């Protein structure tokens, strides 16, 4: 024990905190051993003092300090007794300074090495040299050897890294602690902990530990027996979760502050439940891992995945978006990089739509709202590569979904696939600002993301980054360069303005062309992107070139692209094809194709054909079933297609001009291509073992062959040769293709492939998101070729019927698809058209056209006509030709229109050229045969309707008519300057209200046609067509247009001119329409609170209609009918107020008799009016004679009906005042206008002839009137009585009278009395009387007012006795005993 005490605390290296355990240990030992304190109060012996100072000095210098006896501080400080101390003079010295203290030679020290210590301090070395260290070491060894004997060794810990001396001791201490802890736990606890550890530790680590344990000590696992387990301290139970034990020895440390030690607890197990959040009560924040996968909250994710962190919910793995945003602004670079990288991954995944089902809100939209764009933009400005690269990736992922581009590139070679979408969001709303430059970045961002990017100088930054990355190693920069191109491509896709803006950014364009489309390809050195042809750069040029011929011209000539591309093409042909080159070459073809379509660089390509292209094709064919080659061939054949179109166009244009351009490209250049293409296509039919997707190649081949045939036919070159070619195609390619098994499979899956609306598209960033690629491109091309073949060989459709046989088999999926498509097209009036649906439109049209040709005798089912009609409003801008062709097909097929499905054909002999005079001032009911007659009449006008509707298509275009080439080549034949291969991604060609033609633009005064006749013709045309559709019960009217729109469009004719409705022709249609609507019960189903599609609100419309009626109707019966429709009781009372209150002059002309009204009258009478203001006006116009029975019978009837109902209605208390006033006025006029009074009181019901009146007053009403009389009498009496004084009031006669009153009243209801008695005082009196009939204090309570609770409850009951409504209240009168 004593030994222990005397052991000096071992020296420590570095700054170490006091070892409390040790200190306490010593303290305890000391107390137990009862040792003498080492410091004592002693008198210093005198001898010592007399020692010479010199000796002392020397001694001190080399003093051998006894470690065991040294005390740091003397416990008692005693003043030295200096009384007897002799005072010595200072010793004279020779030197001017005291002698320097000597510590031995320091150089020697460096050579000394202390055993067992790696790096000994100078002090230690000195001690060692002086032989003092030995003591300490010996002690240490001795101690540890004792301990070794006593205790077991840890198997696991070696303590290396802790230092030799401390290590050993520390190790032992840790081990002891472990053992002690294990001892304190019972078996279950240990197993639990073990389980926990096994879970939380890296499995590799566990395996390592196990192995190590086994090596050192086979099978020996320390496990305390159950008996040694300590009983648990119940009081300290709480602390078991926190590994802290208190010790009373610590000053002020005896209380454990658990709330501060929360962090030491184990993580709670993650649960799906979460503390309720105010902002979002259901749902938990989404957490993502680094790859952007959504993390499940309940899944058990090991902490080694590094997804747990000190966030809001440490137990849940993964990062929320908020946390990522936070981290992306961290000061630590790595955190920023990781956060942005994770965000980039999340965005990439979000665009694929994987989150759509899991997240409550659209993720991309939320990110944009949170300002991710600014975050990225800031990150792009950083100088460190790691971060700007991630930022670029993030931006590319955000604005340019990879899937969009991929599918777009796979559809470019489809028929009409050269149209690229211009992804322009809706027009920027300026709000209060004057111009776009006044808007802040944030405001622009909300409306248009790409424009905002331009504002934020992304272009300039891109140049800088591209330039800066040139010096980086190839591996790091390649992806970022590509990402920058993705961003640029998406920006160029925005609109023509943006494309021009990019093109004008000269620095950027120069750099791109110089570096990525160099004049000559330099031999490749380990995949560096700079100085080589980059596919993305070519694609970027293609997207720019799509924006029009002018931009293309500038692009080619500023950079001499023809030379550059030519060089590369020739070079690539001579090289063996590697995959990288392959991609660039494919892009090069693709770019060249767009150039040729725009009318540039065709000659250059033509000159290359015989020398370069044809040999290349031959080599390709030899290698044929090959994925890589087929991709190349697809682009090459698409290029041929463009070339054929260009040449056809060119020759057609210059045919009439006399000058002969010898060097220009002509048909002979491409004549040889036919065989090549056919050979390639034949190759695709060869069945191969390996799965190679040759659909694309077949598609492009089909359309190229079709173009070839069209070209040859149009130009009338070798017409004799043409049937031969057709035969060749049929036999060698088309028929085998139609028979192939893959074809059948394709048709079976067709209905699954329909295009869907993008889900991730936001308002400021439209995207095209499409999950799968459909087969409609292929089908479209197939049908196009078949169509052409039919046109060349007219006998074929009757003999062969390829398509009918293929697609219209039993249980055909195509028919199912067409039905589904019809539903989809007519599903919603505000349907947005997905970009990729355009191919389906083309397919549907071609399909119907072919079926039309193939039908022999039986008619085509109506569904095909319906679908074409439904298709029209879905066509995108740019598909003029398709719309025109559809019109042609529909309007010229009389067989469809004359078909009698529900329409009984009128006797044809009735058709004369005279006007039908359906509308007369006498009756407006038109029989169905007359209507059919009108229908026949309208059908006769179909050819002129075609011209009319065709002109609507071209109303906004410079060229009015499309020629035949346009139709075949899909509108590519416009004049070159206007040619644009970009069409807006969702703007449709025709409005949903297209059947109404120009009517809606007439309503809004967009179109001003001064000539009256022209205007009449226009209106008539629209009316005719709509009438035809209406009679056909056409789906497009019924489904896509709301009833309100259908009604208003027709009623709106009245607004188009003061005298339009007086024209007989138009009036005929107006009558017929009214009858039609009436038959469909449409007049009762208008939605008066909604908008008229693509026009104004119904309310505004009605107001202008009433205005117009007021100004120039002449009280026309038909017009009055139209005007009355919204006045029915089922509609909003605002509409009635318009007529009855705001335009009360109108009432004078509405001289309708009830039998002149076409539709059921009940709707004007049932239910009763309950708007007090209108009722007051009813009374007013009746009383002041604006409405008279002899003139405006119908209005009179309405007013009387509602007033009567109102006056005898006793259900509502708030109307009593008005009731009384009106009643009084009526009474007052009863002398001079007896009829009105009688009718108001005696009114029974309405009828076509006029109001029906009770001969005598019905009992209930007469009782009512009687009561009124009695009460009037009573009131007078009471009034006089009340005016008498108190003494008289208490007389016995008064009491009798009061009792009489009380009993009478109690048999009636108070409200009834209130409605009858119009004297407030009397009412109050009666009221008090009723509630307290026996009290004498009645008059004192007179002012207390009506007691709410004692009011009788009324139950409303309606009895119908010949149309009269009686309301009989059930009265509970409470009489107190």
């Amino acid at each position, binding site marked *: 024990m004593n030994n222990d005490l005397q052991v000096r605390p071992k020296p420590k290296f570095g700054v170490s905190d006091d070892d409390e355990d040790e200190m306490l240990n010593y303290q305890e030992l000391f107390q137990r051993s009862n040792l003498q304190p080492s410091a004592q109060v002693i008198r210093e012996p005198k001898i010592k003092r007399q020692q010479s100072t010199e000796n002392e000095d020397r001694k001190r210098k080399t003093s051998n300090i006894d470690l065991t006896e040294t005390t740091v501080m003397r416990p008692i400080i005693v003043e030295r007794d200096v009384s007897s101390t002799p005072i010595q003079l200072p010793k004279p010295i020779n030197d001017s300074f005291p002698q320097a203290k000597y510590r031995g030679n320091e150089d020697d020290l460096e050579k000394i090495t202390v055993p067992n210590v790696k790096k000994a301090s100078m002090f230690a070395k000195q001690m060692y040299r002086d032989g003092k260290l030995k003591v300490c070491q010996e002690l240490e060894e001795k101690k540890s050897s004792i301990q070794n004997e006593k205790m077991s060794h840890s198997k696991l810990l070696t303590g290396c890294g802790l230092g030799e001396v401390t290590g050993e001791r520390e190790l032992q201490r840790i081990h002891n602690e472990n053992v002690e802890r294990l001892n304190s736990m019972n078996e279950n606890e240990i197993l639990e902990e073990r389980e926990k550890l096994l879970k939380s530790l890296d499995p590799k680590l566990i395996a390592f530990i196990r192995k190590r344990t086994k090596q050192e000590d086979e099978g020996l696992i320390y496990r305390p027996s159950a008996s040694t387990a300590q009983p648990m301290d119940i009081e300290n139970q709480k602390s078991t979760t926190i590994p802290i034990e208190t010790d009373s020895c610590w000053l002020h440390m005896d209380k454990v502050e658990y709330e501060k030690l929360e962090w030491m607890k184990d993580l709670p197990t993650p649960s799906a439940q979460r503390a309720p959040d105010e902002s979002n009560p259901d749902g938990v924040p989404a957490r993502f891992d680094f790859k952007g996968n959504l993390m499940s909250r309940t899944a058990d994710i090991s902490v080694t995945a590094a997804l747990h962190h000190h966030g809001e919910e440490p137990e849940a793995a993964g990062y929320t978006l908020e946390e990522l945003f936070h981290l992306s602004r961290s000061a630590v670079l790595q955190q920023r990089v990781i956060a942005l990288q994770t965000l980039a991954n999340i965005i990439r995944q979000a665009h694929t739509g994987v989150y759509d089902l899991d997240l409550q809100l659209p993720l991309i939209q939320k990110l944009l709202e949170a300002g991710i764009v600014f975050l990225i933009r800031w990150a792009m400005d950083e100088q460190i590569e790691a971060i700007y690269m991630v930022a670029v990736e993030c931006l590319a992922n955000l604005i340019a979904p990879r899937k969009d581009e991929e599918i777009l590139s796979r559809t470019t070679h489809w028929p009409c696939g050269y149209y690229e979408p211009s992804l322009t969001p809706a027009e920027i709303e300026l709000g209060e600002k004057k111009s776009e430059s006044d808007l802040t970045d944030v405001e622009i961002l909300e409306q248009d993301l790409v424009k905002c990017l331009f504002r934020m100088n992304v272009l300039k930054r891109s140049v800088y980054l591209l330039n800066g990355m040139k010096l980086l190693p190839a591996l790091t920069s390649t992806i970022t360069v590509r990402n920058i191109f993705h961003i640029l491509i998406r920006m160029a896709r925005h609109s023509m303005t943006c494309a021009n803006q990019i093109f004008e950014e000269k620095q950027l364009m120069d750099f791109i062309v110089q570096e990525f489309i160099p004049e000559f390809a330099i031999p490749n050195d380990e995949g560096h992107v700079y100085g080589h042809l980059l596919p993305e750069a070519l694609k970027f040029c293609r997207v720019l070139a799509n924006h029009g011929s002018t931009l293309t011209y500038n692009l080619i000539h500023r950079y001499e692209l023809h030379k550059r591309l030519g060089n590369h093409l020739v070079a690539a042909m001579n090289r063996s094809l590697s995959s990288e080159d392959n991609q660039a070459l494919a892009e090069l073809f693709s770019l060249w194709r767009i150039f040729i379509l725009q009318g540039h660089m065709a000659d250059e390509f033509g000159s290359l054909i015989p020398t370069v292209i044809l040999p290349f094709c031959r080599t390709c064919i030899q290698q044929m079933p090959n994925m890589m080659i087929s991709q190349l061939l697809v682009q090459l054949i698409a290029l041929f297609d463009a070339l054929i179109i260009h040449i056809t166009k060119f020759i057609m244009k210059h045919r009439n001009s006399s000058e002969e351009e010898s060097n220009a490209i002509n048909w002979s250049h491409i004549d040889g291509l036919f065989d090549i293409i056919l050979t390639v296509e034949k190759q695709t039919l060869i069945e191969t073992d390996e799965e190679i997707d040759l659909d694309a190649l077949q598609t492009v081949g089909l359309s190229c062959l079709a173009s070839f045939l069209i070209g040859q036919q149009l130009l009338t070159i070798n017409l004799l040769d043409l049937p031969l070619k057709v035969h060749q195609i049929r036999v060698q390619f088309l028929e085998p293709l139609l028979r192939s098994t893959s074809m059948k499979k394709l048709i079976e899956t067709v209905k699954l492939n329909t295009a869907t609306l993008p889900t991730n598209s936001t308002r400021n960033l439209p995207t095209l998101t499409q999950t799968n690629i459909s087969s409609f491109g292929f089908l479209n091309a197939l049908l196009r070729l078949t169509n052409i073949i039919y046109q060349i060989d007219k006998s074929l459709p009757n003999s062969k019927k390829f398509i009918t046989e293929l697609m219209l088999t039993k249980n055909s999926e195509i028919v199912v698809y067409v039905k589904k498509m019809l539903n989809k097209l007519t599903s919603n009036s505000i349907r947005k058209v997905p970009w990729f649906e355009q191919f389906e439109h083309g397919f549907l049209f071609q399909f119907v056209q072919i079926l039309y040709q193939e039908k022999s005798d039986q008619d085509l089912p109506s569904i095909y006509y319906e679908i074409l009609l439904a298709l029209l409003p879905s066509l995108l801008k740019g598909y003029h030709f398709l719309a025109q062709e559809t019109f042609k097909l529909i309007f010229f097929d009389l067989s469809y229109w004359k078909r009698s499905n529900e329409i009984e054909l009128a006797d044809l002999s009735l058709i004369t050229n005279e006007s039908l005079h359906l509308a007369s001032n006498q009756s407006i009911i038109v029989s169905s045969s007359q209507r059919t007659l009108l229908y026949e009449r309208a059908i006769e006008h179909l050819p002129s309707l075609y011209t009319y509707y065709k002109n609507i298509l071209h109303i906004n275009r410079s060229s009015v008519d499309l020629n035949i080439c346009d139709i075949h080549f899909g509108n590519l034949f416009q004049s070159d300057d206007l040619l644009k291969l970009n069409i807006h991604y969702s703007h449709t060609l025709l409005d949903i209200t297209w059947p109404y033609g120009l009517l809606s633009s007439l309503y809004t005064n967009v179109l001003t046609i001064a000539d009256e006749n022209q205007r009449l013709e226009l209106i008539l045309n629209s009316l005719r067509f709509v009438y035809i559709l209406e009679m056909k019960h056409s789906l497009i009217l019924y489904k896509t247009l709301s009833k309100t729109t259908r009604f208003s469009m027709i009623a709106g004719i009245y607004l188009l001119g*003061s*005298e339009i409705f007086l024209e007989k022709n138009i009036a005929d249609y107006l009558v017929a329409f009214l009858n039609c609507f009436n038959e469909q019960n449409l007049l009762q189903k208008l939605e008066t609170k909604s908008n008229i599609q693509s026009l104004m609100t119904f309310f505004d419309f009605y107001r202008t209609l009433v205005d*117009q009626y007021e*100004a*120039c*109707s*002449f009280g026309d019966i038909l017009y009055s009918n139209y005007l009355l429709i919204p006045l029915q009781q089922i509609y909003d009372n605002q509409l009635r107020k318009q007529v009855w209150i705001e335009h009360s*002059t109108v009432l004078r002309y509405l001289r309708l008799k009830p039998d002149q009204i076409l539709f059921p009258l009940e709707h004007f009478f049932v239910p009763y009016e309950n708007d007090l203001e209108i009722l007051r006006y009813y009374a007013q116009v009746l009383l002041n004679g604006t409405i008279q029975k002899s003139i405006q019978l119908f209005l009179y009837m309405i007013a009387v009906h509602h007033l009567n109902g109102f006056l005898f209605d006793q259900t509502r208390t708030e109307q009593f005042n008005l009731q009384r006033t009106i009643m009084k006025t009526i009474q007052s006029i009863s002398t001079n206008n007896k009829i009105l009074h009688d009718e108001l009181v005696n009114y029974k019901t309405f009828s076509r002839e006029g109001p029906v009146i009770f001969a005598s007053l019905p009992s209930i009403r007469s009782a009512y009137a009687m009561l009124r009389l009695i009460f009037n009498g009573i009131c007078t009496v009471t009034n006089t009585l009340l005016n008498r004084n108190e003494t008289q009031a208490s007389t016995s006669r008064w009491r009798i009278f009061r009792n009489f009153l009380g009993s009478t009243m109690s048999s009636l209801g108070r409200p009834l009395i209130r409605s009858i008695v119009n004297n407030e005082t009397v009412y109050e009196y009666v009221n008090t009387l009723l509630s307290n009939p026996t009290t004498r204090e009645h008059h004192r309570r007179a002012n207390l007012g009506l007691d709410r609770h004692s009011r009788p409850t009324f139950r409303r009951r309606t009895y119908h006795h010949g149309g009269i409504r009686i309301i009989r209240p059930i009265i509970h009168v409470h009489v107190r005993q």
Partner: protein
Amino acid sequence: MNAPATFESFLLLDGERKIIVEKDSKVPNAVVFTISKEDHTLANMLRAQLLKDPKVIFAGYKIPHPLENKVILRVQTASHEYSAVNAMENAIKDLIFEMDMLEDRVKSAIANRQSAE
């Protein structure tokens, strides 16, 4: 800047007629009066007066466009013996009479008032 001159709303242009009377060919006994340089002030008054006439079955006006300073008034009477032009004349006479009466009454009322003070 390009606002029409203020006098345009009340000064007749050279050769412009104040009132044009046309018979409506499609409606019996109907006449369309086009009154230049007038607005609601006159037209509304005229219409109200016309509608008081029991033989007038329709009287309505409209201003074709706010910038065109004219009013189109359509009047229809019950029979051809009493034409719309007659009705119009009567209405104008009545209106003038009413105005005169109003003026007289105002004057006499003022006179009464002044004499009372």
